[in-house]
């Protein structure tokens, strides 16, 4: 009660700006946010079960702001590192499954996260949030494209954004690599996947089916 009783939301904004907030960007409250003005600390511990609407808004925001690509990296940042709604391990498990199954990774990941956090409605919120708002935006961009394209600065800004966005993917890749068991076979499988896809440019389907099946079978035998 002593701390900021009258402006809990302002306090959030401040926290969010300084990057220390576990909780929210302005405008999207945790469930407990406004329960009482004096319970600021309460609202800072993230709610374990976000609502489907809240998830929809988060996925929409990411879908609408993720210039330059690397969306899975944005999701890792948001759900694991900032909000602590999922463990790194749980996220990476979902990512591995999302990559092994057909379908656009980000969409798979959004459904996975949504389902884990909020069941069926969470999955629907993830799917619609990551696709519908950006789909509308991309059509608007297409309509204005000829105007936008005339400016050199548009291209420069996008090239710069794409470069910075690689950081999201690379840091996620390093996080994932750190989680690979430190044994000969898993490390070899990781390197072989990298070489097969990155250097030799073999079709992903066969790499995932081949190396994936081999690696899973070995893991099964070890358990």
């Amino acid at each position, binding site marked *: 009660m002593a701390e900021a009783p009258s402006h809990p939301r302002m306090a959030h904004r401040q926290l969010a700006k300084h*990057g220390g907030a576990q909780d929210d960007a302005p405008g999207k409250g945790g469930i407990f946010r406004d329960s009482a003005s004096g319970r600021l600390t309460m609202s800072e511990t993230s709610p374990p079960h976000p609502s489907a609407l809240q998830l929809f808004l988060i996925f929409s925001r990411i*879908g*609408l702001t*993720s*210039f330059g690509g690397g969306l899975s990296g944005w999701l890792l*940042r948001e759900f694991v590192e900032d909000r602590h709604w999922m463990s790194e391990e749980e996220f990476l498990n*979902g990512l*591995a*499954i*999302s*990559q*092994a199954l*057909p*379908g*656009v990774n980000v*969409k*798979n990941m959004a459904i*996975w996260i949504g*389902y884990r956090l909020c069941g069926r409605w969470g*999955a629907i919120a993830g*799917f619609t949030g*990551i696709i519908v*708002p*950006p*789909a509308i935006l*991309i*059509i608007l*961009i297409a309509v204005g494209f000829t105007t936008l394209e005339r400016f050199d600065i548009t291209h*420069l*800004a*996008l*090239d*710069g*954004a*794409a*470069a*910075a*966005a*690689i*950081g999201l*993917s690379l*840091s996620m*890749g*390093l996080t*994932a*690599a750190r*989680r690979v*068991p430190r044994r000969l076979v*898993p490390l070899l*499988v*990781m390197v072989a*996947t990298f070489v097969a*896809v*990155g250097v030799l440019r073999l079709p992903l*389907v066969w790499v995932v089916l081949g190396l994936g099946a081999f690696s*899973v*079978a070995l*893991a*099964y035998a070890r*358990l």
Partner: protein
Amino acid sequence: MPNALLALMAVFVPLSLVTIGGGQSAIADMQRQVVEVQHWMTQAQFVDAFAISRMAPGPGSLLVTLIGWHVAGFWGAVVATLAIFGPTAFMIYGVAHLWSRYEGARWQRALELGLRPVAAGLILAAVYVLMLTLDGGWLARLIALASTGALMLTRINPLALIAIGAAIYIGLHAALPA
């Protein structure tokens, strides 16, 4: 124009099923279908749409939304988007459901542990390919590495990171002799 809508589905549903490891793998095939087989777009129009999908935020596969829009307006956009994202959505949903139901089963641990090195290799390979093909050469690669460092060492917000990256890139581009 139900025929156009059916044609969109006939092209994009099969494509959605072969996109393992992300939508990028399907782009070449999509280009062939859209430009050479169906004649929905000229090569130049396809290249423009591709450029827009890279420029826009959100999943890169929204390229199909643009193609659908181009072919049959609003409903074309809706049908194409559902065709590319919909079928596989049920698959991951089913798996997520089974996952929660059989938490801790041996096959599940085996899948988690076994797929982990493959997933890590795939992400790093994607980054490697992106790094090689990045527009803007060493300057852009330097920004990519700096951005990685910033993400791993600080709690910077991704949107701020992207904005700063773009600003630095524009600034250095202006400052350095071409």
